[in-house]
């Protein structure tokens, strides 16, 4: 028993330095994972500041921050949760920026026709089969689903499609349904569609058919490292990575 | 009916190689614990598959390893009364009793049921649950359950071993009635000689996985050569006689072939056949008829054989009229009396030396 305790203590001691050396802790929306992992590596290499990133749904992260989680920087996939934190005084004044933009697209399992579809005009030509589903993230709660519902509503399509919609708990799960062919079509972020080779881009929803898709960033603790990380996100190296992943850049370059 | 058993089976610490024939009546496998008795019964029941062997009951081959015949237990039509009863706790006594009848060929009418309830005295227990029964009651129900499955052979593995003396005394009369009335042959396992003496018609004595002596019970029990196997302290012959009278002073008189035997009051009616086990060590011998002695039973006898053992004692086999019994005396006494085959003498038995549990009812074996 005591031997176990000693082992446990050794393990904790071994872990402690890595925790202590992580000078900036970032809470980021899951859809940023691929791009942000590379940017963080670049940041550490360039600035000599270690980063620890926790990826999860924006809502989960925001709630954790409300409960006092030790985040230095928060990158949200929508403005609502950032607004919530701001109202509660949990972000550092003056550090919030609208960092990235994204668009939502109609993704299909089968290859798309040569000429991209125009929505809403070409919606009727989509072949859902007898009871094929339109995969989306949860339309009342998950950002990608909320944007998708807005777009379909403003294009006058929601009424006719709402019974077809299969709501996944996150946008990646919706993407998986299309990728596996369980649902012939789905509404996902442009960045997601780009990341999955089994999914084809059929149409992009007009940007004015839904609220702007904005990824705000802010410091949640006022440290030099947090500010340095935010600045790096807007630097040329980070911008190149974001762009390659399919994001649009909203903030002007430094 | 007859049961014919021949089997060889190797168990940790026991190399079993046994063959015997069981004629009608109660055949008792007798031996110390660990001798292999239960293994034999389990093989007959089909709960154990012997390495080699052939078991035939009433002409039907239950098991023959040579020709690969193996009847599963449920198709053997044997009733098995286990040491611990093994009543089904979730069923009432009635449901336990009728359990086997579900599967018995040609369901019987209520006659049989009533007869067996009566035989075992379990009618009042029908609505109870096994958990609410005493040990003796449980065993009676277990016997009834086995009988009501209409077996062609009843197996009883130490049916009394788990019971205290009082419960044993309660059940033994039922087993005697079973032997005499139920018409089902019984293969019975026991390590208690008193039980064997009361129940067995045939004895198969087993030691270390081998049959060492087999034959009619009265013969085996009265055989001085079998004494070492049966246990010196336990050895004793079984005498059968008619209950002649109940006397006012509390004694019952049993008519043997050469002399009467007086014993404390026996619970049987005048005219009934009784079996009495007389332990060899409770018998004294005298060359002349003693007088002015408290012992009431003085049996004129002739020595048949004297068997010398390892210790200071000898076992003397005697004949009194048609009855054969044993006496255990010291070698010194035997020498002083110059006992040998043909020596006339008297066997002396104290009435109170014969325990109630050693007296049972019984037909001539």
């Amino acid at each position, binding site marked *: 028993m005591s031997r176990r305790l000693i082992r446990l203590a050794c393990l904790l001691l071994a872990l402690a330095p890595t925790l202590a050396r992580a000078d900036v802790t970032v809470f980021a929306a899951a859809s940023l994972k691929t791009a942000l992992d590379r940017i963080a590596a670049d940041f550490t290499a360039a600035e000599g500041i270690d980063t620890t990133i926790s990826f999860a749904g924006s809502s989960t992260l925001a709630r954790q921050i409300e409960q006092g989680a030790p985040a230095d920087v928060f990158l949200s996939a929508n403005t609502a949760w950032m607004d919530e934190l701001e109202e509660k005084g949990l972000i550092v004044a003056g550090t919030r920026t609208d960092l990235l933009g994204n668009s939502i697209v109609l993704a299909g399992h089968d290859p798309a026709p040569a000429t991209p579809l125009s929505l809403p005009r070409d919606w009727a030509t989509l072949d859902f089969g007898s009871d094929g589903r339109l995969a989306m993230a*949860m339309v009342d709660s998950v950002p990608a689903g909320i944007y998708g519902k807005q777009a379909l509503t403003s294009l006058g399509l929601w009424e006719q499609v709402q019974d077809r919609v299969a709501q996944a*708990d996150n946008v990646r799960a919706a993407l998986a349904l299309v990728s*596996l062919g*369980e649902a012939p079509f789905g509404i996902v972020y442009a960045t997601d569609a780009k990341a999955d080779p089994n999914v084809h881009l059929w149409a992009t929803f007009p940007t004015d058919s839904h609220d702007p898709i904005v990824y705000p960033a802010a410091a949640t603790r006022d440290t030099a490292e947090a500010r340095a990380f935010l600045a790096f996100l807007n630097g040329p190296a980070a911008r190149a990575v974001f762009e390659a992943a399919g994001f649009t850049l909203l903030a002007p370059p430094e | 009916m007859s049961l014919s058993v021949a089997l060889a089976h190797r168990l940790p610490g026991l190399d079993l190689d046994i063959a015997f024939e069981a004629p009608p009546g109660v055949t008792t496998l007798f031996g110390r614990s660990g001798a292999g008795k239960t293994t034999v019964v389990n093989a007959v029941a089909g709960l154990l598959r012997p390495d080699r062997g052939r078991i035939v009951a009433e002409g039907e081959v239950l098991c023959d390893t040579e020709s690969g015949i193996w009847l599963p237990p449920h198709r053997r039509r044997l009733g098995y009364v286990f040491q611990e009863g093994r009543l089904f*706790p979730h069923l009432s006594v009635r449901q336990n009793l009728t359990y086997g009848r*579900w599967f018995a060929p040609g369901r019987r009418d209520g006659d049989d049921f009533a007869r067996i309830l009566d035989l075992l005295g379990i009618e009042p227990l029908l609505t109870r649950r096994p958990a609410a029964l005493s040990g003796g009651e449980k065993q009676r129900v277990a016997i009834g359950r086995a009988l009501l499955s209409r077996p062609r052979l009843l197996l009883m593995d130490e049916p009394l071993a788990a019971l205290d003396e009082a419960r044993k005394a309660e059940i033994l009369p039922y087993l005697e009635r079973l032997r005499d009335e139920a018409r089902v042959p019984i293969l019975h396992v026991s390590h208690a000689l008193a039980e064997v003496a009361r129940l067995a018609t045939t004895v198969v004595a087993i030691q270390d996985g081998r049959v060492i002596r087999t034959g009619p019970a009265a013969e085996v029990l009265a055989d001085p050569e079998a004494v070492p196997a049966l246990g010196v302290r336990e050895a004793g012959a079984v005498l059968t006689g008619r209950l002649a009278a109940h006397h006012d002073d509390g004694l019952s008189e049993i008519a043997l072939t050469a002399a009467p035997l007086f014993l404390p009051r026996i619970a049987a009616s005048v005219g009934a056949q009784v079996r009495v086990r007389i332990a060899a060590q409770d018998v004294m011998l005298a060359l002349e008829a003693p007088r002015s002695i408290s012992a009431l039973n003085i049996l004129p006898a002739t020595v048949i054989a004297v068997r010398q053992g390892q210790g200071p004692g000898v076992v003397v086999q005697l004949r009194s009229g048609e009855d054969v019994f044993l006496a255990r005396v010291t070698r010194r006494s035997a020498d002083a009396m110059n006992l040998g085959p043909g020596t006339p003498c008297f066997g002396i038995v104290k009435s109170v030396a014969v325990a109630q549990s050693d007296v049972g009812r019984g037909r001539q074996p």
Partner: protein
Amino acid sequence: MTPLTPQELDAIALSLKVAFWATLFSLPPGILAAHALARWQFPGRQLLNGLVHLPLILPPVVTGYLLLLTFGTRGPVGAFLQETFGLVFAFRWTGAALAAAIMAFPLMVRAIRLSIEAIDPKLEEAAGTLGASRPWVFATITLPMMLPGVIAGAILAFAKAMGEFGATITFVSNIPGQTQTLPSAIYALLQVPGGEAAALRLVLVSVVIAMAALLLSEWLSVRAARRVAGR
């Protein structure tokens, strides 16, 4: 507290339906698997044991994904069942029931297995000598005696099925009235700022149902145990 909305009532009703059928259909295979694990000796016994416990070990999302791969309309089993029996799981409540059944299966098997292991095999032997063949022994002795465990396992499975979320949403997603179960509804509410109050109401409903199921199971188990023990 405001009354529940029709959509919330739908979710509650659907959850009860899903949990009920999930429990009912997993009982026969659950009893079979428990019996096999408790009593049979066969090669691959440990493999079966591992397989049964897999949903307990895997993240629910992975289980859901594997179900999607296997029982989806394009999955090998799913396609076969659809063509042969017209049975569709994908995006149907039947799929939610399948996911719930798979997730609850290990709990059910464990409870039943324990109750089988508590039965003295000598009683089954005794039934055999009375003329009962193996299936009869099982039906008349083993099954009634393991009843307390079966009840406990079934209720445990029911409660687990009521609360299953991860595998369900991954496999059949969240379609109001079709596959939106209570946990899905709670999850959806928790994703929007200010949804906590509404979520809490549904959580209360869940807790009440789970507690009722638990109490029912205790009561039934005690009764059955008493019956089996013959008191």
